[in-house]
């Protein structure tokens, strides 16, 4: 049977990965909202595409549908959709989250400031943070990928960002993207943890390869919320995903990488995250070979995530062993801006000197905002208006 002819309801009676073997499948089935599903329960995958593209299917309708959709349904319909379909439908959906800034509002585009340094040198990181803030990045999060997964290192970097933030009264949330257990240990020792990060995937076995499970994520969500550090909201989780992670861990149960990716979004939405982004070209050419595949995957992930109710951003990126270059990134960035992406990455000069890949730059985010008339998160925009005055004070911290 062709995919277009498969009834959506079949996905509720035939799990792709056995219920008994996989806690992500159990999560998907146990939390499925039959009432929300009712408006589309009679449709096939092909009909569902038509339904999504119908001009009467508003953002509000799509938002109330989300709890009734399983990730497999989202993945299935996305396979029948061209790039313009993926953009047209996703652009109707707004998913707004809050901590110290409000991310995802209509007419806004945020950026994660990613100031990584190959040896986690705090002054080096601080220099990149100052550069990024002065160019308008950081309203999604100031998020450092540490080179070393050490509790003391995480604590030091979190304290540095917290001090900078409070001293200059900058409305941002910070995050050090170590393993969740490392962040929780830092939190227990009193480190100022805003958002808790974890890489997640769409099967229990793939998550196990990351050293996590649903219970552990639930515990992290609970303790981070209890700190009540947010000022305008309490979305405290930050997740990253990417097609190929389950396959690369040999944990895909024969399911294709794009469906596995959508299943990761079912994991994410359980914890009402502040931020979710696919790191679309990061894993490498064995999963997404060239620019064409990366562009398609970025739009699929953004669409599936939004359809399932997630505040999707995207790390528009590629590695040097993929057949891709900066022109592909310009194309995907521009397409995602039109699709209404919540945030993109701001990496100094688009070159991450720690993770060794190319993402988007502070300048790329500025380009997209200027091109599409988008503005930063409102709280951050207010601070930016007077940021120039603060620059000399921030620079003085370096010398």
């Amino acid at each position, binding site marked *: 049977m062709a995919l277009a002819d498969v009834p959506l309801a079949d996905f509720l009676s035939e799990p792709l990965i056995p219920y008994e073997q996989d806690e992500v499948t159990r999560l998907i089935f146990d939390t499925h909202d039959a009432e929300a599903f009712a408006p589309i329960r009679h449709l096939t995958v092909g009909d569902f595409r038509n339904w999504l593209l119908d001009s009467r299917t508003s953002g509000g309708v799509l938002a109330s549908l989300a709890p009734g959709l399983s990730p497999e349904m989202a993945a299935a319909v996305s396979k029948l959709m061209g790039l313009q379909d993926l953009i047209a439908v996703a652009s109707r959906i707004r998913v707004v989250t809050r901590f110290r800034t409000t991310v995802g509002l209509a007419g806004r585009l945020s950026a994660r400031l990613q*100031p*990584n*340094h*190959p*040896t986690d*040198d*705090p*002054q*080096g*990181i*601080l*220099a*990149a943070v*100052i*550069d990024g803030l002065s160019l308008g990045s950081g309203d999604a999060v100031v998020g450092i990928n540490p*080179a*070393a*997964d*050490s*509790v*003391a*290192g995480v604590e*030091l970097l979190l*304290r*540095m960002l917290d*001090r*900078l933030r409070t*001293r200059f009264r900058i409305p941002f949330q910070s995050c050090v993207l170590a393993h969740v*257990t*490392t962040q929780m240990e830092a939190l227990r020792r009193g480190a100022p943890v805003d958002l808790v990060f974890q890489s997640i995937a769409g099967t229990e076995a793939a998550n*196990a*390869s*990351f*050293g996590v499970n649903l219970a552990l994520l639930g515990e992290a969500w609970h303790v981070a919320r209890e700190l009540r550090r947010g000022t305008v909201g309490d979305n405290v989780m930050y997740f990253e995903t990417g097609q190929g992670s389950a396959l690369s*861990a*040999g944990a895909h149960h024969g399911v294709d990488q794009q469906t596995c990716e959508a299943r990761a979004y079912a994991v994410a939405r359980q914890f009402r995250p502040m931020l979710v982004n696919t790191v679309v070209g990061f894993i490498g*050419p*064995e999963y997404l*070979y060239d620019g064409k595949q990366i562009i398609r995957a970025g739009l699929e992930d953004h669409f599936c995530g939004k359809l399932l109710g997630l505040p999707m951003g995207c790390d528009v990126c590629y*590695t*040097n*062993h993929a057949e891709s*270059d*900066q022109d592909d990134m310009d194309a995907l960035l521009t397409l995602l801006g039109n699709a209404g992406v919540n945030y993109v990455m701001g990496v*100094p*000069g*688009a*070159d991450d*000197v720690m993770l*060794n890949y190319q993402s988007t*730059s502070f*300048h790329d985010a*500025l*380009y997209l905002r*200027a091109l599409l008339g988008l503005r930063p998160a409102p709280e951050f925009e207010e601070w930016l208006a007077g940021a120039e005055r603060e620059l000399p004070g921030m*620079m*003085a*911290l*370096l*010398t």
Partner: protein
Amino acid sequence: MTNLRDFTMARVGLERSGAALATREVLAFRMAHAMARDAVHYPMDTASLQVECAARGLPSLALHSMAVDRLTYLRRPDLGRKLDEWSREALRAHGDSAGCDLAIVVVDGLSALAVHRHALAVLDLLLPQFANAGWSRAELLLVEQGRVAIGDEIGNLLRATLVLVLIGERPGLSSPDSLGAYLTWNPAPGRTDAERNCISNIRTDGLGYREAADRIFALASEARRRQLTGVALKEGRAALPGTQPKVLDTP
């Protein structure tokens, strides 16, 4: 005036025109990308590495993964994780049935350049530490077209309790020659990344040889004491960067 570039090798403080990067910056970026692309396809010269090992009195054995060439390697990571038939046989012939405490595996990964520039320099500082602590060690294994997990099969065949893989990391724009070190306790095919510890960015402008060697040895010692590697094993204070940020000095 303070220049942001004095504090990091990241591309900060770039010249721009409007929101866009200035021509000079764009051209520099494209040149760096071309160099990184070249590094991916730079072949490992195993013969010359073996000569260098011999000069140090280090016995070594050359192995190859099941990925026959670079294009296969890029498309089929599964083949890069397995030894080819000849290599498996060679290891069986060389393997000491009594096993060993440590097997060190040097792998080209995505940058043979990194291996050529840094692997032996790190080992020069690291091997004496293991020797002094009384670790028994298999001969040095040199692997072409390999991924990190190929160390699992090698360690298993050698009955090593710990495997250290030194491997060329994916080349970055500013770092075509970055070396990574992965430690896996009780190596066997099927180990996951959550069961490993990693020290990355070993290169001239990144983590220096001395610090890299000390951190690898500290992690390995802790792994032996606790009989595990992976997310349950955390690096201690040794991993802390040297400079205290000034922003923390003042109240």
